[in-house]
């Protein structure tokens, strides 16, 4: 998710004994979400278990990604007469509290793998009968249907939509070299010209790839952790700012505060389309930390048939291609057209992406957050 700020992937790694109090707090946050929903409550009611509901409710991240979905879903509404109401929130943890506090209100939610991990812990997700999603199972590349975090052997609760790579974008007019690897960002000539993302886990994720390991080893192996930590310190020397939101990173690039910024591919595309041709997105040869977008269906929803129908419809080939164009991130369908393969986040194979094993990564997250803080202040 492009707007994903720290919330998304910097999953909590609180040990189990504090889970209870975190839940307690989530309840409170959910109550706030409920207020936002109150006005729509009437349109939700009456769905019932049988018959066609008047409307279903989609919970997303807001911004361009939600607008893209809205645009597409409207056509489905015209065909079926079922309205799709949209609600947005700041990220996975907020999604969780909204769903927990307002059972039955949300029918489709746009979780990332981090949110899926949290939702599974809380048993919030409905089991999917993939037989109801023929378009998805036929059109989506199988490797992505079976992405590691989806855990096809154990769970059947996730519909993968698109990957978001987190490489970097650089200003080719200001940087004299051709940048291809993570090692290029520690080049002394770039001192004070680099903005990296202000989120501990993705930062550890990318830095670990740069030194030839990965986030899962970092989470389990002390030597890998130490090596990655030192690498982050090294990268820090060129950093003038850690950005908190994608918009901020874009601004730094535009205003030339930054010649290089850690970035999502789709965002760079938008920047290029706005006339900044000199910006080039790089997926470094060592690979990148990866984010993802998915559809999930809360267990509490009473309109699952309609929700599944919507998602199945959205994976019709032409619909998937249209969504991709609006989104700027590639839906990984089979035989992708030029419109998809030309996107910066497009990868030929799922093997060039690495996902964290959330259960172990979360355990280590608090330490990562604190160590990252230490580096920032050094």
């Amino acid at each position, binding site marked *: 998710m492009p707007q994903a*700020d*720290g*919330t998304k992937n*910097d*999953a*909590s*790694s*609180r040990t189990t*004994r*504090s889970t*209870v*109090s*975190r839940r307690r*707090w989530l309840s*409170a946050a959910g109550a706030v979400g409920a207020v936002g929903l109150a006005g729509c409550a009437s349109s939700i009611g009456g769905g019932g278990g049988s018959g066609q509901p008047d409307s279903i409710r989609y919970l997303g991240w807001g911004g361009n990604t939600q607008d893209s979905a809205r645009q597409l879903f409207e056509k489905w509404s015209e065909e079926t007469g079922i309205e799709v109401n949209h609600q947005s929130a700041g990220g996975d*943890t907020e999604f969780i509290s909204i769903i927990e506090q307002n059972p039955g209100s949300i029918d489709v939610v746009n979780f990332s793998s981090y949110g899926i991990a949290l939702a599974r812990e809380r048993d919030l997700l409905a089991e999917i009968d993939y037989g109801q999603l023929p378009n998805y199972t036929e059109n989506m590349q199988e490797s992505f249907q079976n992405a590691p975090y989806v855990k096809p052997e154990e769970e059947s609760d996730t519909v993968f939509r698109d990957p978001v790579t987190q490489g970097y974008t650089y200003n080719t007019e200001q940087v004299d070299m051709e940048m291809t690897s993570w090692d290029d960002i520690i080049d002394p000539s770039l001192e004070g010209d680099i903005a990296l993302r*202000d*989120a*501990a886990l993705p930062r550890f994720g990318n830095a670990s790839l740069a030194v030839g390991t990965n986030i899962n080893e970092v989470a389990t192996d002390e030597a890998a952790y130490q090596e990655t930590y030192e690498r982050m310190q090294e990268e*820090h020397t060129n*950093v*003038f*700012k*850690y950005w*908190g939101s994608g918009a*901020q990173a874009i*601004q730094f690039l535009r*205003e*030339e*505060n930054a010649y290089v910024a850690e970035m999502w591919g789709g965002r760079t595309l938008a920047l290029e389309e706005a006339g900044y041709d000199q910006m080039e997105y790089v997926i470094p040869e060592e690979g990148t930390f990866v984010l993802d977008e998915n559809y999930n269906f809360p267990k509490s929803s009473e309109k699952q048939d309609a929700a599944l129908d919507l998602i199945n419809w959205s994976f019709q080939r032409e619909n998937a291609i249209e969504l991709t164009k609006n989104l700027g991130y590639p839906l990984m369908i089979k035989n992708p057209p030029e419109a998809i393969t030309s996107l910066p986040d497009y990868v030929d194979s799922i093997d060039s992406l690495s996902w964290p094993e959330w259960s172990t990564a979360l355990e280590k*997250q*608090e330490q990562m*957050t*604190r160590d990252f*803080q*230490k*580096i*920032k*202040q*050094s």
Partner: protein
Amino acid sequence: MIVKNLPIPKRLSTRMTSRTLVVIGLGWLGVFFIVPLLMLAMTSLNLDGGAVWENYAVALSGVYISAIVRSFYYGLVTTAISLILAYALAYYIVFYSENERFMLGLVILPFWVAYIIRYLGIQLFFSPNGPFVDVFGSNMGLLFSTEGVIIGLTSALLPFAILPIYNSLKSIDQELINASYTLGAGSYRTLVSIIFPLSLSGVVAAAIIEFILATGSFLGPALLGGPGNTMIANIIATTFRAGFNIELASAIAIIYTVILTTVLVTFNSVVNIGEVLSDL
């Protein structure tokens, strides 16, 4: 403005006793300030086993405590610079400006623009494509640095310092200043011995407002600071949002509140705030 003969329903006017008004006021404070604060205090305690004060132990360790110290340091520096600038400006407006209303309008104007926009404005001003670099060739390290944060906080919060100082200067009787001159004092002596002491209430008010706002700033360091310039609010936000560690965030918030209160109480014992402010 007092509207006379406003038709107030009799039921309301008979029930609107002063006691009701107090209850409304205290109720508001209670529900929206005291209760959340208590909830925060509860959340900050580790009640799920282990040491109850565990979160405080973490909060008072290296990374967090340095951000707390930094916040108060920035708050202090911002307050000092703002008071000097605000005093000079307010002094000019009251005693020299031809068009006082216009000048005050300029002072208040920034209030119409959201903070985030003003900070972004400063960021753009000092950015490589901005006017400052155009003229001077470099931003001289005034962006994404301690200086950047101080400049941002000072400029964003300056009106809050100017207004109370303006108010206190404005309320000085011109004849007192005239008296000082005729008694043989020059401008400087008059400023030091008469004008400044008589405007102290405004200075104190400005200092308190400025210090509280500056110390608790989130956007200033977020938009104008470098990686090492994070302040308390940023640390709390990061701890909560990125780390999703609400207990630790609460503990830091409580520590900050306690220190801030202690600072104000200490200040109060030196300068009786209540007494000084009653002059305003």
